[in-house]
């Protein structure tokens, strides 16, 4: 398996043999298809991260993420979410499916 991207908490691997990806979430290693990576990206984009800095909107500063058809459940704190957002962004760039964040603003 080749390492494609690594951030503080997460690592993305590609397995050419299995035609699949693996994400090391620290707590566990999860096999993911590109579709599942896209779904993770969408979930992260939908998280209102600003609420983590407002004690009324997100009292605990945690997010619960269900991955891969509810097979995996992750409970992540603010730092981990921020790192995961960056990790996913960098992953899609490294995979050639996203251009650099600076050139396109959505």
């Amino acid at each position, binding site marked *: 398996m080749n390492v494609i991207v690594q951030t503080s908490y997460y690592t993305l691997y*590609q397995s*050419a043999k299995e035609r699949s990806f693996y994400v090391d979430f620290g707590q566990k290693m999860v096999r993911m*298809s590109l*579709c599942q990576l*896209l779904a993770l*990206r969408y979930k992260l984009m939908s998280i209102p991260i600003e609420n983590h800095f407002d004690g009324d909107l997100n009292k605990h500063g945690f997010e619960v993420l269900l991955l891969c058809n509810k097979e995996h459940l992750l409970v992540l704190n603010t730092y981990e979410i921020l790192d995961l957002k960056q990790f996913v962004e960098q992953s899609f760039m490294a995979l*050639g499916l*996203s*251009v650099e964040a600076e050139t396109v603003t959505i």
Partner: protein
Amino acid sequence: MKDIARQSMSIKVESMDLLNGQIKMEAHASATYLAMASWCEQNGFFTSAKFFYKQSEEERGHMMKIFEFLVDTGGNPVSPEVTNINHDYSSIVDVFENTLEHEVAVTKSIHNIVKKARELGDLATERFLDWFVLEQVEEENTIRDILDMIEVTGTEGVGLQMIDNQVANWIE
């Protein structure tokens, strides 16, 4: 190293995000035209109501076209949340003026995606949107023609009922 990612997906994620935004916009247009049909039914403009039922269906068709493109290219199409549908209009003229405004906004949004796709070098998305660019020319033209007809007919006396009857010319 094998390019599994590229083999699974043939457009850029930035294009995908913009197209998901467009899915939402088409769904919003569809719901707006349904609200206009409701207004027309309640205010006695039965032919215009038919026109808006048809428009509403067409907009859903547009939405599905983009949805299917995202499926075909290995993307992640998102079923949109549709909120903020206006049901209040002051007159039938107001309804059609709002329609034109809505269509112009859709045109701008599509042009914006074409430009972004071009910047990204995403030829598939750019070419896919050709159909939408031309469709918008027609849609705007239809509504402009109806507004011209309204202007010529005038809203005095039986004008409003004549306007409604003539909308039939734009329902094929």
